[in-house]
């Protein structure tokens, strides 16, 4: 009689979440492959400008990074003018020569001519600072530079 009576309940059946870990792992692997660990903590705003005639930097290990931009919100006590950051701290233009020397000392001697200096400069910085950096780089004979930019059109974003 009531043996075949269907159990009646108003609840919806639970969604099967067995594949949720797989999905999350997939995302995880994507991020592990596509990104790199942060090497320096930026204390400045670093919103790179756009350009479309870009070339890739050839050797990862042979790049020296010089950052410049306006101090970010936590560091406003350092002013609102664009500043240089080398490694993890603010620096002045005079520190660049020492920084380049230190980077060169780390590398094998035969690789030194291939070292490139990547300038990661905020798009709102002004050219005075960059002119100073370039002059300083010329003094220490670090002539290969790269203006790091994001890929995109120049026009229409100004």
């Amino acid at each position, binding site marked *: 009689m009531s043996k075949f009576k269907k159990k009646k309940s108003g609840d919806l059946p639970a969604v099967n979440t067995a594949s949720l870990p797989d999905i999350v792992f997939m995302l995880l692997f994507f991020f592990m492959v596509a990104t790199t660990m942060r090497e320096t903590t930026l204390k400045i705003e670093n919103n790179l400008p756009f350009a479309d005639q870009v070339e890739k*930097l050839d050797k990862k290990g042979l790049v020296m990074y010089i950052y410049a931009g306006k101090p970010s919100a936590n560091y406003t006590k350092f002013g609102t003018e664009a500043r240089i950051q080398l490694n993890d701290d603010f620096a002045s233009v005079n520190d660049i020569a020492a920084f380049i020397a230190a980077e060169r000392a780390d590398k094998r001697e035969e690789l030194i001519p291939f070292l490139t200096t990547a300038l990661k400069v905020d798009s*709102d910085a*002004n050219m005075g600072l960059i002119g100073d950096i370039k002059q300083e780089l010329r003094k220490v004979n670090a002539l290969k530079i790269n203006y790091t930019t994001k890929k995109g059109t120049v026009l229409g974003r100004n």
Partner: protein
Amino acid sequence: MAKRAAPEVNAGSMADIAFLLLIFFLVTTTIETDSGINRKLPPIEESEEDVVIKKKNIFTVMLNGNDQLMVEDELMEIGDLRKAAIEFLDNGGDKSCDYCKGKKDEASSDNPDKAIISLKNERETTYKIYIAVQNELVAAYNELRDRRAQEQFGLSFAEMEANYEDVNWPGNKEKLKARIDQIKIDYPQKLSEVQ
């Protein structure tokens, strides 16, 4: 006694663990930008002798502190710069350049080898605008080189360079290198910056 099946491990918290890892990686990593415009700075050397360059072979680009662009003593929008630069480089005024398609205007540059672009900026110029101008000037050179490469070899200059970098490219790399160098000689990048 019948063999008992091992109890199933509860995998309900697997998703939580994976999320935790995911969030850790999201926070500690960045997507690196490792491309940009390559430039070479001029070395510091005290050269006594001044090189004499005819005024018509110099294309002056100036940026002032208000981010206004002046090309050959006239105001210009950045959008028009590429075209103007190509016209200047490709002019071929002394008719020695047989691959130039410019106007052969006597008052403009003699040939691509002699044509020099001089870029001057002020301290107040914004970096963004400077990069935009650099980009347009590099684009002008690249466009001319692409055209020359298409004519001669049926490939764009960018493709040739990509092939040269590509380790799996089957062709003859030395020949390709010679071709790339030849195009670089046809349209040399002579971009000088005034300090």
